[in-house]
């Protein structure tokens, strides 16, 4: 079984071919970071234009590198939401067109399910498992009960964690995208020099909040002396990054510990904690969560960084999982800018409409 996966929901254009034996036969990713850098963040129209420009070429190359022809594919899967809808439509329409010509099923993949099932692409893992999904657009704790079956334990009530990383980076003049830069600087800093809050830490439940932390970072930055070019000293930058990284780790560990308890209350037997999404590429966060999992007797699974950030392989794999479950979609499928994994989850207390 071989499935083509197409990903165009944010600022990576990607196409991959994965087979039923978990082999990634081709994995093409084109980052648009250079296109968006001048704007200090992702511009949806710029992203959509770039996806259209490149996706067919990436697909052609992926099929070629996989050493197969289009006729060898069993299905065509594409991210159909959630995400920036202009880009999502480019990938979904390309996939629908391929599906029509090849007379193979079209599979509309929820981008979050792509992240959620990546752990099963890299190794044997049975349902259910606990998932911490942390990216630029999401921060959620979920029980993955099966393909298409999720129970949300908690979510951010304001900013996503990746967004907090990016905004911190911008305040410190580290540019876009900021996550990797903040992590690198944090390793050189002293985490205790600047006190930063740990929002919701110690409270019951599994929800997150990062806007207060972001505000405190801004106030800390504003209170520091700057040189005539408006620059902080390297020491100050490193210490703020270290304080931010430490606060984030404490919050994630505390909320995830609550989720582990909630998971244990319902599921006995072997258990696993999976971390996924772009922020899961952060090595210090992985280390902290691995320690927590080990204390609690949970297996810890973090996909390699290349499979944490947006990619086509996770969409192809989700396509394989859905195809095996008999879940295919019509060519009239409507792409969805918002598409929760657990549509029955109650709104988190204090959360905005996007949570």
């Amino acid at each position, binding site marked *: 079984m071989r499935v083509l996966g197409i990903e165009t929901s944010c600022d990576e254009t990607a196409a991959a071919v994965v087979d039923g034996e978990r082999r990634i036969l081709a994995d093409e990713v084109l980052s648009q970071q250079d296109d968006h850098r001048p704007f200090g963040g992702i*511009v949806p129209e710029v992203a*959509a234009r770039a996806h259209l420009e490149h996706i067919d070429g990436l697909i052609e190359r992926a099929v070629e590198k996989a050493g197969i022809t289009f006729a060898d594919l069993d299905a065509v899967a594409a991210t159909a939401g959630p995400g920036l809808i202009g880009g999502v*439509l480019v990938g979904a*329409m390309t996939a*629908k*067109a391929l599906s029509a010509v090849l007379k193979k099923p079209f599979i509309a993949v929820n981008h979050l399910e792509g992240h959620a099932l990546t752990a099963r692409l890299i190794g044997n893992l049975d349902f259910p498992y606990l998932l911490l999904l942390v990216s630029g657009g999401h921060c959620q704790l979920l029980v993955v009960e099966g393909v298409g079956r999720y129970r949300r334990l908690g979510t951010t009530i304001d900013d996503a964690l990746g967004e907090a990383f990016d905004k911190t980076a911008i305040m410190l*003049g580290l540019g876009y995208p900021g996550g990797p830069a903040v992590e690198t600087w944090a390793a050189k800093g002293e985490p205790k020099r600047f006190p930063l809050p740990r929002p919701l830490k110690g409270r019951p439940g599994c929800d997150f909040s990062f806007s207060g932390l972001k505000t405190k970072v801004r106030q800390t930055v504003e209170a520091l002396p700057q040189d005539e070019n408006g620059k902080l000293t390297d020491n100050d930058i490193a210490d703020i990054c270290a304080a931010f990284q430490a606060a984030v780790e404490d919050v994630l560990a505390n909320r995830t510990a609550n989720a582990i308890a909630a998971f244990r209350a319902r599921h006995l037997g072997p258990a696993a904690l999976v971390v996924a999404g772009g922020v899961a590429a952060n090595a210090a966060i992985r280390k902290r969560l691995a320690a927590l999992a080990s204390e609690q007797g949970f297996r810890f699974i973090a996909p390699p960084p290349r499979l944490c950030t947006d990619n086509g392989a996770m969409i192809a794999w989700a396509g394989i999982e859905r195809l095996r479950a008999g879940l295919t979609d*019509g060519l009239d499928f409507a792409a969805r800018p918002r598409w929760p994994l657990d549509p029955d989850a109650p709104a988190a207390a204090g959360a905005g409409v996007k949570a």
Partner: protein
Amino acid sequence: MRILGFDTATNACSTAIVRDGRVVARRLEPMARGHAERLMPMILEVMDEAGEDFSALDAVAVTNGPGAFTGLRIGLAAARGLALAGRLPCLAVTTLEAVAAGVPEAELHERQLLVVLDAKRADVYAQAFAPDLTPMGEPRALLPDELPTLLMAGGKGRDRCAVVVAGDAAGRALAALDAAGITAIRSAALDSPDAAVVAGLAAARWTPGAMVAKPRPLYLRPPSTTTPKKRRRTR
């Protein structure tokens, strides 16, 4: 020659099969949104009705704009996907040309043609054509009161130019021309591209078997972006 044509760039979704210059199946549905859901089913409907298979097509033809950014990308993404999987040439015509080609000859008699499409903003997308449909300039995005500058001055005052106006922003264009003292009539043609015309026009320009470049979108406007204000800190 068998060509599948389609358009999703403006206020309708349309698909058609044209075989040796004859329209054998055609669909056109007015819609403000929902093109991404309807396009592929409408393509399969005309393929079925024409008894056509992708493997027997000679080319696909699509409008590449100007129009709604998302709409024209829906058509172009589908066209480029069909072309890739079916190893088919992908031909493009502009929305303005397609609307122009749909204007009845009787209306064009010694009149210039102004095609004007809604850009969902203060400006419109427009292009002027001579009575024989030769373009009199490039497609432009401009304010309605700038439209007279696209027309050829053929004399003074009322006789300056006899004009027929087509497209879904014809109403705004007629008002602007009237204000400038230019006599114009409104075309009875469809105010959005007809896929059958798109396929026919593309076929007429293409030498079967000739290689064509991938169609590129004709946006006419850069993305609206703002560069960040002076950063609090810069490194």
